[in-house]
């Protein structure tokens, strides 16, 4: 098991390096001159050239790439934001909690609501409860989240005045962003849970358990649910990664200064150090989440644990 974890961590390093290389190259070839943006609309060509030199943008591609990789990975210094003039790492750490609060709470909401809805629908399969629950889930997943956000602001802030429309501060500022982020995930989790529970319904061991005379609730919780858990875990993992990554739009609507908004403003103002740092952060974060998901797999399903622990060579004919 330990060997497996080590192997995955090594691969993670390779992936992060690859991502760094790709993002640097994409940014290098993006049209739009950062020096011009930083120098401002009133700058002359000479001013812009001066600025390019100060920012180090007039060096060759390989020199800049080497510089970037060296500073990021060997000195662990992500540089200063060209627009904020402050270390990117410090700003990331300040903004992280805000994005995470929304992400984790949305995830928790996802899980509880989604699982409950899914189990409810699965145990009442074919009846009206099933159809209604799944219909509601459908509607949730079909609405664009920023549209729901705007509708909620209109209703709860403008018309009713119950919740603040923007910013950060106390817990009431986070209520609407969390609900909007969670909606799509609730639906996906509900449908996923229902599908995998139904898949398990028909397995022989369930019939055996029922034949043995066990109570239905025992059958559901002890036999069905753990076996149905696998795809659910996958969707939890990918859902969490998706929420944090998709936070840009929600944060933009609610003016929450988190990592998503940081990245969005950085792209618009061609603040490359920030873009690179944010993308690297997301890449590492997604990789870690995937690793955790795989580890939870191993924890839940002993067969998979065995697979990880054994040394398998794939033979190819």
């Amino acid at each position, binding site marked *: 098991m330990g060997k497996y974890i080590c192997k995955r961590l090594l691969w993670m390093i390779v*992936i992060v390096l690859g991502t760094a290389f790709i993002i640097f190259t994409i940014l290098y070839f993006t049209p739009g001159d950062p020096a011009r943006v930083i120098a401002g609309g009133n700058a002359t060509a000479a001013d812009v050239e001066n600025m390019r030199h100060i920012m180090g943008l007039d060096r060759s591609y390989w020199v800049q790439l080497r510089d970037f990789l060296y500073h990021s990975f060997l000195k662990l210094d992500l540089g200063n934001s060209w627009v904020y003039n402050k270390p990117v790492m410090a700003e990331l750490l300040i903004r992280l909690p805000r994005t995470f609060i929304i992400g984790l709470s949305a995830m928790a909401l996802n899980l509880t609501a989604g699982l409950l809805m899914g189990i409810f629908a699965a145990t009442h399969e074919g009846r009206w409860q099933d159809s209604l629950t799944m219909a509601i889930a459908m509607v949730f997943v079909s609405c664009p989240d920023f*549209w729901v956000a705007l*509708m909620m602001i209109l209703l709860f802030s403008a018309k009713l005045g119950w919740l603040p429309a923007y910013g950060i501060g106390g817990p009431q500022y986070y209520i609407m962003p969390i609900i909007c982020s969670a909606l799509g995930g609730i639906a996906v989790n509900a449908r996923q849970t229902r599908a995998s529970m139904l898949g398990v319904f028909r397995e022989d061991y369930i019939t055996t358990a029922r034949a043995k005379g066990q109570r239905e609730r025992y059958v559901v919780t002890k036999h069905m649910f753990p076996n149905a858990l696998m795809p659910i875990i996958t969707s939890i993992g990918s859902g969490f990664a998706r929420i944090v990554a998709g936070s840009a739009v929600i944060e933009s609507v609610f003016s929450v200064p988190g990592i998503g908004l940081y990245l969005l403003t950085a792209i618009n103002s061609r603040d490359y150090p920030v*873009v690179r740092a944010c993308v690297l952060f997301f890449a590492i974060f997604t*990789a870690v989440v995937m690793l955790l998901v795989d580890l939870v797999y191993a924890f839940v399903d002993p067969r998979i644990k065995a697979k990880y622990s054994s040394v398998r060579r794939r033979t190819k004919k």
Partner: protein
Amino acid sequence: MMMQKRDLQKTSLLTETFQRIWDNAGARAGVILLAVIVLACLGAPAIAPYGLNDMDIQNMFRGPSLKHICGTDAMGRDLFSRLLYGGRYSLALGFCAAVFGASVGIVIGCVAGYCGGRIETIIMRFLDIWSSLPSMLLCILISATLGAGFFNTVLALAVGNVPNGARLIRGQILSEVSKEYLEAAESINCSKLSIMFRHLLPNVISPLIVDATMGIGMTITMAAALSYIGLGVQPPTPEWGAMLADARTHILNYPYLIMFPGLVIALTVLAINLIGDGLRDAMDPKLRK
């Protein structure tokens, strides 16, 4: 005699799938809804009461009325007509991006799954890097790089769909690869390419079709989000997401400008998801009742 003839009648996978979808009431509703939307958008020149860009300056920001079913926007253009024309762009964006992404994914997944060994490892690691970048971010970055415009947006949206499809196909292939019919095909000297695309592919494609169908819905939403942020198509293209973005500042006084485009997006995605669900039920033998 007649009975025997009927029994021996060939039913292709396609007809059988359609039959099953049609029997499923939810999917049936989805098909009808989507058909209505698509036909309305295709028939926009005939149905739309006003032209796409007809401006009536004296009647800016009118609410829904008999003259303008959905009201008018900031420049006096009829919202209903723009929604109809806009459907073409949004649907085309979603469809093209999903199909393009799926096709590239199929090719990569097939190569990876069938060739195996080193090629497979390299491809899978590359896909790992690709998918470690969240698709929304990748979309935004590529859109900012390529600039606005229809084809650039299709490309940006398609990029996010590829790793998923590739992984799916490869997973399916891995579980098929030991089956006998492949060994049989190899033994009669079929070329690798031929085996990949003529024998293997039809058997593994069903989950991908379901995934791609769901992907259309997600792509339409992402296209709307891109336009909301300011990337995406050029004005005055009436893409649904762009219409949402333009209406953002007017949400307090003219909320109908936000409601109708959002509603239409939601209904379209709903219909597509219903069809996707029906497809999955139809193609998956285990879920047959």
